[in-house]
């Protein structure tokens, strides 16, 4: 059940999934995290995986990117079984940004982003003018050209995340998998980073990410995958998927879903226990 609300710009013939998992079971040392799961990632769309902690969202993303090998089932990338492809060939098609990556102290932004060219290089051909121009473009697109000479560890969290996304971009793939790109960022920087991801999507990338913040996920994605206990509970456009009942079922969260006053998406208002007065709200 692929989402119906695919961006209109995508021609019908290309609407087959770029990346799909069928019947995958994944586990760590005997404990099964994902059990017999099917999913298809529609092309040209921002897809976000949400779900409670420990539901297997990151595991699913890592399985789709071949970081984890499923015990059964297959992941198909552009028609090929991903397990049978060479690691390098996967890296030429699919860019992956793991959760909270760390750069060596003192490494400059330009050098980090340049490393994104690795899949296209070889022992003899370690740097070409192509590489230079792609890296320049990646730096410019993510707005970090001015920081190119600065050490990555001297940057703020938001800038650092931009730099990592820039490295993934320099890889030159139009399929980006981002594992919680907004972790450790305050709301303003999270919005900033997601705007950047949306720019990449607008420029033609297929994006799959894991997010914790439900309202940001609702605002920024066209296709939500809601997971619980290793399986998919619902998938589709946020307008169709996000309901009070679903939030209760997936997260055990009591919430009201209202119209977003600044957008055309639903807005989740968690209820919780204190300072709630459903008739009139006092305080902040």
């Amino acid at each position, binding site marked *: 059940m692929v989402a119906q609300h695919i961006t209109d710009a995508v021609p019908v013939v290309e609407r087959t999934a770029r990346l799909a998992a069928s019947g995958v079971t994944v586990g760590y040392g005997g404990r099964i995290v994902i059990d017999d799961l099917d999913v298809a990632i529609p092309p040209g769309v921002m897809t976000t995986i949400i779900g409670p902690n420990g539901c297997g969202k990151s595991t699913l993303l890592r399985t789709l990117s071949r970081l984890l090998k499923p015990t059964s089932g297959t992941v198909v990338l552009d028609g090929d079984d991903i397990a049978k492809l060479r690691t390098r060939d996967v890296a030429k098609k699919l860019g992956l940004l793991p959760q909270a990556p760390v750069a060596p102290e003192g490494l400059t932004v330009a050098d980090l982003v340049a490393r994104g060219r690795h899949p296209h290089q070889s022992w003899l*051909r370690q740097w070409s003018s192509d590489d230079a121009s792609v890296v320049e473009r990646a730096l410019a697109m993510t707005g970090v050209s001015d920081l190119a000479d600065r050490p990555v560890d001297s940057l703020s969290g938001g800038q650092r995340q931009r730099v990592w996304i820039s490295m993934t971009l320099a890889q030159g793939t139009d399929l980006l998998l981002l594992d919680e790109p907004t972790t450790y960022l305050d709301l303003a920087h999270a919005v900033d980073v997601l705007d950047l991801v949306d720019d990449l999507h607008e420029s033609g990338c297929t994006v799959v990410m894991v997010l914790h913040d439900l309202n940001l996920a609702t605002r920024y994605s066209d296709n939500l995958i809601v997971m619980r206990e290793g399986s998919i509970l619902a998938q589709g456009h946020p307008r169709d998927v996000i309901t009070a009942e679903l939030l209760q079922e997936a997260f055990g969260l009591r919430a009201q879903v209202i119209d977003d006053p600044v957008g055309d998406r639903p807005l989740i208002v968690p209820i919780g226990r204190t300072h709630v007065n459903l008739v009139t709200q006092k305080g902040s």
Partner: protein
Amino acid sequence: MNGTDVKQTVAPGVRLGQVSFVWRPWVAGVTLLLAAATFLVFCLSISVGDFPIGLPNVIATIFGRGEQVDQFVIMDLRMPRALAGLVVGIALGVSGAITQSIARNPLASPDILGITGGASAVAVFLVTVSGGTAAAITDSVGVSAAALAGGLATGMLVYFLAWRRGIDGFRLILIGISVSAVMEAITTWLLVSADIRDVARAQAWLVGSLDNRSWNEVWVALWCSLVLLVVVTGAAFQFKPMHFGDEVAAGLGVRYGRVRAVLLLCAVLLAGVAVSAAGPVPFVALVAPQVAMRLTRSPTPPMVASGLVGSLLLTGADLTARTALPVSLPVGVVTAAIGGPFLVYLLVRANLR
């Protein structure tokens, strides 16, 4: 800044036929200087002795245009020692650069990962325990080769104990320290319970020394190191993204498990070759990569520069031990005495900046 500056943001590339690489003038300059300094100290170490030979004569002889007398003193008497210093220094420096990069921790040197400890325990066992198996092993393969095997076995043991769905730097270091402690305990126990004459021989082996190297020992160390360095050079390119962790490396198309296993094996073998050629010379593998990083201003230990610094440190220490000090000391005593303060100086200077 404006668009005209954009071209300078990325390091320029250099192209030689099919080969292209990033051009970093500072790194290249420092590495070249280090190579020149290493060659100079190497020649100095040959030049100095009971029968001093001028530097020009040394260089002429090395390139096969020396006089007969010099030829004998240099090639037969002094070259093995100097070459051993060069090779052992490079092996230790590169080995340290690899282990520190893999563990992403400057503490992870072959000294700490059990290689030196294991080699020492085996060597001391063979020297102090007479008769039976020990004598048989000493006679058939020699102390050096047995020590090499002991170092390798201990290194492998540490690696396998530390392996848990991949290698974690901290776990590797903790297990290395634990295993090293056990090996040191065994060594101490052997020394305490051994005959006093054997203890003196064992002690001499334990501090690390370049005295009385034969051409045979040096050739073995040289060829083994050369082969290993070729493998390291081959694998180094795939290792580059691994400085960012396994997951980023995998995302960039690197089969990190294989690359790491190959490089770690090379590091263990290089350290083993060094230990079997010169004994467990302390501190070179720990300090050389750190010094090289600071001299080349690299964020990660540079392989070539680390090897050169290791060699410079070891040969320089040997030269100092033979000439500047009133008593002739084993090189291992001096490497720690020079290397330690120099690293502290570099760290303090970084703090003051």
